């Protein structure tokens, strides 16, 4: 039985391998033992049920932002604005959580919708600007990030402020939090929350949307070749806006699970890094929804483990960030790995062909 890998997963695994190798080099150069470093890095993310729960909690937000970026990618758009969309989603969800008195399921549903609307609008606007005024979405989404940043800085101190600290919102009530007693207890007090269930559901929904539905077909058509899509009668402008709106809504939900699940309030003055890490997740996943889940989990483990690694070995936590950065680099330059892969499989095929020929000749004899 031979293990057969698809080319895309080979690229992703190759990128991870090379990234870890680069991390090992860095550790060795700075005078630490790479083996010990990795041992503690992964132990830190996995060694007990609580830490594993925290890894999953870290991955929850990344699944949403990764899906957001990957979804836009599928339509040929580059969403750098997941951070801002997260903020807007989180802000609206927090506002609903703090001000709307509803029973818990209804409240969570209302927050869910508010987050989708906030993030969706923050994604749709750059889409519309692109279609209407030919503003590149990379530029406009980055600008939208800062608009969101300052909007939060204005709204939180004024309307949602904490009793003691002006720089953060009030703690949301337990009814508005995605944290649930049974899940917290199951994972021995970790940050894990219902957001993970939402995230996995979102992975399934996005995969279904892209693979099975008319809308997914149209969006992918626009993403692969907008000229042919247009010549076939697809309204590519409306599809691009739709794609950005959905991508934004996904990132907005990332804000919901982060600010009302992983965290209990929203701070001002922070542009959440998870938005940018979503790009890394999407790249490593080659934009596949199920791949996003896997990549986000992997990065979640690294995030949770790096503190432990530092505590145990004195290796700076930035090494873990460097590993992530290197992985992104290799995933993005996947062509390199693909070439090696092609050469290897070609040689493999030739060898197989030669063997067949020999078999054939011997058979003749």
């Amino acid at each position, binding site marked *: 039985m031979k293990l057969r890998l698809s080319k895309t997963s080979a690229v992703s695994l190759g990128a991870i391998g090379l990234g870890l190798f680069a991390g090992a080099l860095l550790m060795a150069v700075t005078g630490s033992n790479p083996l010990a470093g990795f041992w503690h890095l992964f132990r830190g993310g996995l060694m007990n049920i609580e830490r594993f729960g925290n890894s999953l909690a870290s991955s929850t937000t990344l699944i949403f932002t990764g899906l957001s970026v990957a979804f836009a990618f599928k339509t040929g758009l580059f969403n750098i604005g997941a951070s801002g969309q997260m903020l807007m989603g989180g802000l609206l969800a927090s506002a609903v959580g703090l001000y709307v008195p509803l029973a818990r399921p209804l409240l969570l549903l209302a927050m869910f919708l508010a987050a989708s609307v906030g993030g969706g609008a923050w994604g749709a606007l750059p889409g519309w600007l692109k279609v209407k005024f030919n503003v590149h979405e990379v530029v406009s989404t980055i600008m939208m990030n800062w608009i969101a940043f300052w909007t939060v800085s204005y709204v939180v101190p004024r309307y949602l402020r904490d009793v003691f600290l002006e720089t953060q919102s009030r703690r949301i009530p337990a009814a508005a939090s995605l944290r649930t007693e049974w899940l917290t207890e199951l994972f021995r007090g970790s940050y894990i929350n219902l957001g993970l269930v939402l995230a996995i559901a979102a992975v399934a929904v996005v995969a279904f949307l892209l693979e*099975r*539905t*008319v*809308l997914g*077909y*149209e969006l*992918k*058509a626009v993403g*692969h*070749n907008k*000229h*042919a*899509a*247009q*010549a*076939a*009668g*697809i*309204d590519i402008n409306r599809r691009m806006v739709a794609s950005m709106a959905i991508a934004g809504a996904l990132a907005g939900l990332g804000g919901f699970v982060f600010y009302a699940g992983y965290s209990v309030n929203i701070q001002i003055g922070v542009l959440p890094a998870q938005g940018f890490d979503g790009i890394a997740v999407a790249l490593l996943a080659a934009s596949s929804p199920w791949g996003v889940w896997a990549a986000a989990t992997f990065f979640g483990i690294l995030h949770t483990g790096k503190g432990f690694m530092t505590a145990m070995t004195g290796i700076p936590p930035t090494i873990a960030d460097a590993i992530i950065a290197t992985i992104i680099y290799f995933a993005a330059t996947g062509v390199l790995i693909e070439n090696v892969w*092609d050469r290897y499989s*070609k040689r493999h095929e030739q060898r197989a062909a030669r063997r067949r020929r020999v078999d054939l000749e011997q058979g003749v004899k």
Partner: protein
Amino acid sequence: MGVVVEMDNIRKEFPGVVACDNISLELRQGEIHAILGENGAGKSTLMSVLFGLYQPDSGSIRVRGREVHIANPNAANRLGIGMVHQHFKLVSCFTVTENIILGLEPTRGMFIDTKLAAEQIKQLSDRYGLKVDPHALIADISVGMQQRVEILKMLYRNADILIFDEPTAVLTPQEVHELTKIMANLTAEGKSIFLITHKLREIKAIAQRCTVIRRGQWVGTVAVADASEETLAAMMVGRAVSFGVKKAQTKPGEKVLEIENLHVRGRGGVARVKGISFSVKRGEILGLAGVDGNGQKELVETLVGLRRADEGRILINNKEAGGLSVRERIAAGLAFIPDDRHKYGLILDFSLEENMILKSYHKQRFATQGLLNFTAIRAYAQKVISDFDVRSGRGAGALARTLSGGNQQKAILGREIDADPDLLIAVQPTRGLDVGAIEYVHRRLVEQRDSGKAVLLVSLELDEIFALSDRIAVISNGELVGIVNTDETDENEIGLMMTGLRREAVR
């Protein structure tokens, strides 16, 4: 006659294909040696090996008797080998002289001595009858002139072994004629020429010998004088080929497409279509002839709905269609076979079956409540694939990218014809196809005409226009020069009309 180039048992493999399978040939001093083969036969690869763009896997090359290793195009230049590529490599905002000296500028102190260079270029140009103005801007001169600049570029570098890659693809018949004369001048002065082509008539007209390559293999080298076009074609394809298309007389019916005084602006707001009017009727093929870049692209884009007209009317089946969207026009009975099938015709990273429903995925039979019905899609794709003889190694699930050009085109043809349109707009429908596929596409287009559809054929190949059209419309510089019945004209007249001369002036 001495031998200047010997290529001995050249082999070049690419992943999955043997592009050149131990091919040997020689170029004699002062001859024009044609390399004939279908698209993908390996002729360009073979010449790229000689020009140093590819390294052969095995085999040897001798130039003027000495075994050489040609590592890159610079090495080829040093050996006196030059190449005119199919797509010119010129800087359009530079003058002719600046383009030619690019890379080996003669200097005087710190400055480039353009004056000296221009003089040298003028001399070269006169010597070979090229009539090139060294001070003209590339952007201002015709495609035919640009090609001569490419030739001068080789001559300026003292090349005496010249490779021409499909040089006539972009030229009018008159320019082709001029090029033939230029090539004769070159050989008379002792240059030796490799001519890559798949056009038999050109070979008969200018080449002395011809090497035929089929699927990477050497088929034969023949003296052109001893071989008929039919023999050459049979060698190229591997079976007898029928020239021309059988066409029954039909009676054109009512007008399906009618355009009136159409004005269209292209990129940058430049007027590209200037007041064109014509109509296409049921049961006829109207051929639109013209040199590339004379407004055909903008006209077609306006007809299919990718571009808006500034002025004028478009009627499909007597209904105003100028304001309709692409999808509404498709619904009104318009089908479109684009010239750039990779850009406008297919989504290469979609499977064949996904491509087959590109224009009909939203219809009830393929989609219910927003979900795609993959069983129906597969069944439909398989039907079209077998009806139109699309050969795909992995069936309907194969990526469109993996199909050969001919099969990609058949897939598009299948999708468009199966939609049962009233009007079929086919732009360069056989571009880049081999002889077998060309025959097939032509037959299908005539079939459409015979079954009472209207066909608008836009092509740069006059042979194709003449083989298929019932009437020929000629476009030049965005204006309609005239419309003539195919059996009342000839290539010479159409060629002159393509330069913008009215028919009365031509006669």
